[in-house]
């Protein structure tokens, strides 16, 4: 007899409605502040949006690099709920490998097209394998022994490893910035669409990252080991009972993350034509922000977040000043965590809930 009556909705407090609204649209509104404000300013000053569009285009290219790094964060977080602080520095070492390999392979600015492409492909593979192996080794040494320890412990070893890797970089190429030969003439304009110049660097970013993302998403969704990864992420105990080798799966996750970081290292070296031992710290934080923005643990979210952070960063670089960019990105990070800790397309996680 109870079932016949329509269950009365509990009256909702006004605060709750506001909170729900803010949680749903707050982040999107915050994200739109910078582009919209500068869009209006551009319309007033120039009469068109080409400057903003160029910012966005540059931002997407940069964002592709952040997205590659963010994938590493999100995969590892998804599977063992650890923020791998050392990941940014792993990327930095990737860019160092790229720097040295360019010298070893003997590519110069005057190399012709075909050797250049094959040389770069070789370097890409070396960077990816080097970073992937290193990441797996770090997991073995620093995280696996602490698998059952309280969560603070692996986090601290991750911070420790971040410093160790930074110092490896410092010993390797010294404390100063090192210029990378501008092999692809990354700032040369290839063609222009709607007043937006497309450069060689943009093409490189797209050509390398899009297949990698495509491969990653399909790999995680359809391959056998990808399924094992998702199962382990959901419930390691149950996965083990189903015959999944959890340790191998976790190692493999670190390998995948490392591969992406290596690829990001090469693109960064070619695109920015500059490597520095400290670049990993900021890159790591930016990429982590990207991963959180998309919803940590969510692969597509990390890619989306990376692209958005790239745009914010580029607008801030171009309009406010490069020196303020990290502060602005971190301010965004804090705002995201306040308004929508689960990210743009993430689910409620235990951590963020």
């Amino acid at each position, binding site marked *: 007899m109870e079932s016949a009556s329509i269950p009365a909705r509990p009256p909702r407090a006004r605060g709750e409605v506001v909170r729900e609204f803010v949680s749903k649209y707050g982040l999107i509104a915050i994200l739109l502040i910078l582009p919209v404000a500068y869009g209006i300013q551009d319309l007033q000053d120039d009469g068109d949006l080409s400057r903003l569009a160029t910012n966005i285009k540059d931002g997407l290219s940069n964002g592709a690099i952040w997205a590659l790094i963010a994938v590493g964060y999100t995969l590892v977080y998804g599977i063992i709920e650890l923020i791998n602080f050392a990941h940014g520095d792993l990327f930095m070492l990737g860019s160092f490998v790229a720097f040295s390999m360019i010298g070893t392979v003997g590519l110069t600015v005057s190399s012709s097209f075909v050797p250049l492409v094959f040389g770069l492909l070789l370097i890409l593979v070396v960077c990816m394998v080097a970073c992937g192996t290193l990441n797996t080794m770090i997991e073995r040494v620093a995280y696996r022994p602490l698998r059952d320890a309280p969560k603070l412990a692996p986090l*601290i070893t991750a911070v420790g490893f971040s410093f160790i890797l930074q110092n490896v970089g410092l010993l390797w190429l010294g404390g100063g910035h090192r210029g990378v030969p501008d092999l692809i003439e990354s700032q040369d304009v290839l063609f222009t669409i709607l007043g937006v110049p497309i450069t060689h660097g943009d093409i490189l970013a797209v050509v390398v990252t899009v297949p990698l993302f495509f491969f990653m998403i399909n790999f995680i969704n359809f391959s056998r080991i990808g399924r094992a990864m998702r199962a382990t992420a959901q419930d390691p105990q149950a996965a083990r009972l189903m015959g999944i080798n959890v340790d191998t799966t976790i190692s493999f996750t670190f390998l995948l993350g490392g591969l992406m970081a290596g690829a990001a290292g090469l693109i960064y070296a070619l695109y920015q034509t500059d490597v520095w031992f400290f670049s990993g710290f900021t890159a790591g934080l930016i990429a982590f922000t990207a991963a959180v923005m998309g919803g940590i643990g969510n692969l597509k979210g990390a890619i989306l977040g990376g692209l958005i952070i790239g745009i914010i960063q580029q607008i801030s670089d171009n309009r406010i000043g490069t020196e303020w960019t990290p502060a602005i990105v971190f301010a965004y990070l804090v705002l995201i965590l306040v308004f929508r800790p689960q990210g743009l397309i993430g689910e409620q996680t235990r951590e963020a809930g």
Partner: protein
Amino acid sequence: MSTLTTRARTFKPPSRIGKVSTSTIIAAAAIFVAAVLPFFYDSGSGFMNDATVALVYVVMALGLNIVVGFAGLLDLGYVAFFAIGAYTMGWLGSGFFNSADIHIGVAEQLQSQPGIHINWLIVMPIAAVGAAALGALLGFPTLRLRGDYIAIVTLAFGEIIGRIAVNSDEGVFGIGDFNLTNGRSGITPVDKIDIPLVDRFTTLNLRPWYWTALALALVVLFINFRLRDSRIGRAWIAIREDEVAAISMGIPTVRVKLLAYAMGAAMGGAAGTFLGSFYNVVNADQFEFSFSIFVLAMIILGGLGSIWGVVVGAIALSFINTRLIPDVLNDVPSRIGLDFDLTQLGFGIFGFLLVIMMVLRPQGLIPEKRHQAELTGGGLDGGEETVVEARA
């Protein structure tokens, strides 16, 4: 009935005198040695300098220990509070704002100089309260979050403060052109600490500095002990051990966590004012992320949550940083045929220390008693692993 009365009559409170525990004796001896130490060294020597800095690091480490060790909230942006303390000293105790003309409680020769000159004894509480307010403000967004996210938000906060310090020589966030921090050149000279009835604080005579730092450290140490055993301290530890259980026991987690942030920040701010005056300069390069890790390494080395452990860890790491690496170990690489400067690698070594400690001895050099009790009482198998109970 009769037995009860006899018992009641024969009951005597346990006598306190003559039954002092060994640890109390060791602590008293250590404090005595620390107090008379300056008489054995030249008053302007490098050792006095290092010892003074080590004592200030003790204050900072004890502050961070409240947040990380007691309440179990991993704070990677502790350097921000050091920065706030140091800048408060720089702003309120130097000729930096030379259009202002404010003098409170300072010596004769400063009275005539332009700028804001306020006695350190007044600046320090101001900085402590300011840092505490900012600490609570920082804690606010993290309250909804648990775990690793707190680490990241505090890290981001520390970086934002660091960026503001570096770049605010012409406007903040590119707005205006007010010189707030003077960037990497920094604010200098900063007024010397001036305490009535005590010798003048000069760069040549470091003894007053040392004793002031020691007094500060002892006060903070005392506060730490009282806090740990207080209602709030027990609430912090309860939150660290199991937040859900703590909530269901009626602990107001929001207020208690904010208090942890505020207390830790206040100590960082107080220490910052001292170092600002001691170094005679407040510049942006002092406030890098690596410093947060340096302080974190101290409390990990000593033992999370263990007050004496943290003191030992802070003194040990401070001397490793100022003495062992630059003086003793520096020519090791060249002796074995490698060509690099070991001082560059200071933070790599601390990173290595963090990893080694976490993997091999997560409870630290002097583990917290509560953890020891847990270890001997219950978890016999793999109990080692559960020692660091701070739930990040």
